[in-house]
């Protein structure tokens, strides 16, 4: 006997895509193959900063290859991410450049019959570069006399001069921070850093494009938005959208790296149009690592706080090193302000952010979009404050968190709403029991070689980017729900699934709304010609926004269904209900209170067809007017080997408040995966550049970009996940999102755990053994010298 009143929502059911994936039959982009298809590859810059003087492709063409360079492609300047409104879209790129701004930037491209021939042809292209001075550090980039990456770019339809390599800047404030700090009993200020992490999605970016006889194109890309890809391609290549068809293809992991149209896509289209044959372009792993990375941050965080732990003011100043292109730095800064403001209450606040160009791989959103970075700083600082004031870290969080009934900023300062569901307290209190918080010892009491520590971190993410008024970003989803003549259901949406079960959830929402057994609800294949616009599957909006539009489409279909049913069984449509009948696999429409009046959905649909009444369907474009926070809490225990500086996670608790949990097992899987990536961010992952060559020190190879393996993670019994008991009134069946929340609080929790283990505060992630050992040695030296006076030996380098 369970208390789940839903028949589909919250139930564990076999994944619809699971069968194909577990048998190797799922086709990803790199598995797509078309007749007469050519293969392609991109010639990439060996220089971090250089003018392209000339490109000679004649020798390559002699081999029978089709070649393109910037001369062959319309010089439309665009931003590959199409989520922001044009006035807020910073445009600094063309399909292929006449100036390269990072090692690995594409310069020319080649298509030929075989991959071997492509490579031969590529090697015969002669490019003359004029190397320019390059800059790799954001502070150096902002100095006078630094190499200039851009004289100007386009913002909307205006030319925007770029000064000091600052791609964009954002400043937000409320109240009077000077006053707020003056009122404080204690002011704490620290600088934190997070690394230049690589997304590490298992599938490298890829695309197949077929040119059509009518001048159109069909495209199979790795993407998180088929419609944005379509619109951008239509614009760049001047093809009407009705002739541009972009297919939804399962993607082998995204984590934000395909929000923007991936760089190979337009290149491949250009090749296909020139060759007039289908072209396939798959990045190698190394090319992929040079293609995109997470936004690294330097965050200066200042809090004023009263003796009782109440925050009086907060000031966050950040420098974000965005690499060679501005993909979504402006909304990032706005979001970082939003995360900062919505974690803990501050009567007075100020945020300043600078995004700076450097000659490195362009940064783009990666799970959390500034939230893991801000939360790393904030959660670390809260613990620092708690210790100084002698308050328990959990208590200080309970005292200050922005919660139920309070105003919270969505993805930035222009979108505000009131929190209507919140499980923060529940998660902190239950989580602390599970991890054994009360049994924590202070670091001073730990003297053995291997020391364990427990840390807490909390955070949230917005469920999408909805708002009641049009804003800086577009957010809505179109869905169609159609009832087939046998009572099964087709759901059509341009939503993507990255693996977390977004489309599963959509099917469950429709099944629940229509009272149809889940088995009979199908998610249709989707492309841009047969679906209405969905902005993108990002920003943790899949379930909350995309699912909501599916629900409303189902509601519309249901209305029509009841109307037709009422013609057949002569009952007022408003009185009708549906329940799922597992045996027949049908939704049964009935009149409560009597057995006499019922009819299956299939019967109604069939009669509607026979009588010529029409197809029963609902089509909806829906914008959520809110983006409620899905909260997350992590408790992490680490073990530090004080003789080698090595840190490993030993136990973890991850809890999320996602409202109604639609796919419990997949949601738990999100938490487990988020923990792994979060610990990676905290302890392991970064990409460094050689200051002489501008090359990645790891070369782009996974040999030296390490991610955790199964043997690095804690045992099964030492990871616990749970969900808060909440219900979000504005979400489909009470659901919120989870995706990015799963990752946001982890790094801060790890840093806090390390402090609890060894009494050293590390403010720069990744916290690698080399630094840990140096800090431990320095600390023991300081303790010898000062007889235990606490100085923080880690300078955060």
């Amino acid at each position, binding site marked *: 006997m369970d208390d789940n009143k839903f028949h589909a929502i919250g139930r564990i059911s076999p994944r619809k895509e699971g069968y194909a994936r577990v048998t190797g039959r799922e086709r990803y982009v790199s598995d797509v193959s078309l007749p007469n298809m050519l293969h392609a590859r991109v010639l990439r810059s060996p220089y971090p900063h250089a003018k392209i003087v000339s490109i000679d492709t004649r020798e390559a063409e002699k081999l029978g290859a089709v070649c393109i360079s910037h001369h062959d492609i319309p010089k439309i300047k665009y931003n590959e991410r199409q989520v922001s409104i044009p006035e807020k879209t910073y445009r600094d790129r063309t399909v292929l450049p006449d100036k390269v701004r990072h090692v690995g930037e594409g310069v020319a491209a080649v298509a030929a019959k075989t991959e071997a021939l492509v490579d031969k042809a590529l090697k015969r292209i002669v490019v003359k570069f004029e190397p320019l001075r390059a800059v790799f550090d954001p502070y150096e980039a902002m100095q006078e006399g630094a190499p200039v990456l851009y004289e100007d770019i386009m913002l909307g339809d205006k030319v925007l001069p770029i000064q000091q390599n600052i791609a964009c800047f954002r400043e937000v404030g409320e109240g009077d921070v000077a006053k707020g700090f003056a009122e404080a009993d204690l002011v704490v200020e620290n600088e934190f850093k997070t690394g230049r992490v690589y997304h590490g999605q298992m599938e490298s970016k890829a695309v197949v494009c077929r040119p059509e006889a009518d001048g159109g194109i069909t495209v199979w890309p790795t993407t998180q938005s088929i419609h944005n890809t379509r619109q951008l391609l239509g614009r760049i290549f001047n093809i009407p959208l009705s002739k541009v068809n972009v297919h939804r293809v399962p993607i082998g992991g995204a984590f934000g790296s395909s929000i923007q149209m991936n760089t190979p896509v337009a290149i491949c289209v250009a090749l296909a149009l020139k060759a007039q044959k289908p072209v396939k372009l798959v990045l*190698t792993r190394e090319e992929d690592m040079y293609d995109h990375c997470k936004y690294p941050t330097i965050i200066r965080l200042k809090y004023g706080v009263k003796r009782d732990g109440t925050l009086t003011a907060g000031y966050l100043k950040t420098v974000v090193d965005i690499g060679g292109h501005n993909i979504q730095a402006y909304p990032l800064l706005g979001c970082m302000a939003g995360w900062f403001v919505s974690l803990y209450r501050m009567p007075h606040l100020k945020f300043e952010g600078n995004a700076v160009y450097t000659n490195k791989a362009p940064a783009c959103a990666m799970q959390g979009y500034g939230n893991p970075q801000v939360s790393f700083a904030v959660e670390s600082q809260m613990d620092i404050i708690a210790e100084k004031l002698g308050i328990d870290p959990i208590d200080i969080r309970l005292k200050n968190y922005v919660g139920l009934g309070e105003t919270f900023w969505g993805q930035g300062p222009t979108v505000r709403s009131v929190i209507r569901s919140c499980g923060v307290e529940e998660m902190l209190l239950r989580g602390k029991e599970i991890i054994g918080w009360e049994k924590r010892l202070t670091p001073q009491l730990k003297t053995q070689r291997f020391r364990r520590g427990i840390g807490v971190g909390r955070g949230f993410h917005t469920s999408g980017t909805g708002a009641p008024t049009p804003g800086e970003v577009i957010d809505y989803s179109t869905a169609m729900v159609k009832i087939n003549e046998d009572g099964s259901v087709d759901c059509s949406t341009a939503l993507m699934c990255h693996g977390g079960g977004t489309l599963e959830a959509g099917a469950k929402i429709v099944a629940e709304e229509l009272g149809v057994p889940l088995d009979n609800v199908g998610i249709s294949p989707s492309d841009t010609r047969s679906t209405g616009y969905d902005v993108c599957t990002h920003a943790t909006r899949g379930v909350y926004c995309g699912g909501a539009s599916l629900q409303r489409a189902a509601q519309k279909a249901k209305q029509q269904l009841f109307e037709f049913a009422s013609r057949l069984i002569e009952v007022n449509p408003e009185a009708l209900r549906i329940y799922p009948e597992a045996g027949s696999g049908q939704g049964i429409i009935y009149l409560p209170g009597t057995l006499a009046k019922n009819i299956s959905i299939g019967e109604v649909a069939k009669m509607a067809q026979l009588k010529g009444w029409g197809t029963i369907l609902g089509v909806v474009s829906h914008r959520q007017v809110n983006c409620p926070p899905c909260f997350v809490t992590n408790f992490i225990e680490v073990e530090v080997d004080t003789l080698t500086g090595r840190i490993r996670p030993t136990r973890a608790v991850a809890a999320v408040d996602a409202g109604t949990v639609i796919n419990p097992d997949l949601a738990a899987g999100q938490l487990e995966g988020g923990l792994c990536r979060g610990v990676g961010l905290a302890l392991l992952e970064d990409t460094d550049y050689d200051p002489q060559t501008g090359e990645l020190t790891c070369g782009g190879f996974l040999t030296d970009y390490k991610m955790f393996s199964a043997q690095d993670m804690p045992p099964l019994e030492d990871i616990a996940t749970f969900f808060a008991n909440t219900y979000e009134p504005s979400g489909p069946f009470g659901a919120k999102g989870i995706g990015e929340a799963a990752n946001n609080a982890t790094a801060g929790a790890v840093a806090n755990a390390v402090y609890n283990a060894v009494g050293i505060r590390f403010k720069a992630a990744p916290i690698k053994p080399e630094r840990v050992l140096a800090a431990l040695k320095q600390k023991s030296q300081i303790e010898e010298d000062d007889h235990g006076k606490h100085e923080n030996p880690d300078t955060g380098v």
Partner: protein
Amino acid sequence: MVNTKILTQEFDYHRPASLAEAFELLAEYGDAAKVIAGGTDVVPQLKYEKIAPNHLVTLMKISGLSDINEDSDGLNIGACARLRDAKQACARVPGYAALHDALRSIGKVQVMNMGTLGGNLCTASPAADSVPPLLVLNGRVTLANPVGSRTLEIEDFITGPYTAAMAANEIMTEIHIPPDQGHQGSAFLKIARVAADISKLSCAVALQRDADRCVSCRIALGAVAPVPLRIKGAEELLGGKKMDATLLDEAAASVSAGIRPISDVRSTETYRRQVAAVIFKDVFNMAWQRAGGKR
């Protein structure tokens, strides 16, 4: 940029059925030929365009080269024996634990199934995990040539980073490890970033123990010098002595002083130097315990 998705380099591939045939091919093609065994080093090198042979000569079809046998003289591992089989052979002999630990730590099952011990040695990476144990276990290699063969101590075989003292017309046929002499304990540990990874540093120790006396001791470290290195200074400190914590610390300091680490993409010179001392003690203690009881 190199292409890791396909092999762009072109070569002919030869599958000699005997050593004699292999020598003929090497003689015919000279510098343009490269020998390949499991491929786990050669194929990446081809992809990275570090080598560009016109002819690959596989040794994997030559019978006898993958045999493993044990006799009173010790353990003989064919150069083309898979790492997996070499590991299993070492598992049977307690004194060879260092080599067993090292092979186990090399990482992935897949690589254990493909790679060969001979290949690992001939690649001669400064970080090769199999070498420190072979150094402390007095391993020897047999190199065949068209007219005969010669044996070399491992120490003399690896002469520089990725450099083996092997002529172009020589093929490694066997690795030999002398028998366990009783009361022999050995151990190996590596430090890496994640579980299946190239070492930041590694250490192997093999010792003979008599109650609380260290009769003799051999110590080798990997990834902390241009070649995997025996630390003879530390060995001499410990040889013949009654063991205690102070002595072990002295030996550890000697290890730290005796290595020549660099800073690279994986770690720093300082870290390697400091942690070498720590890992050496961990490994020594493991070997000591295995040689017959607790310290």
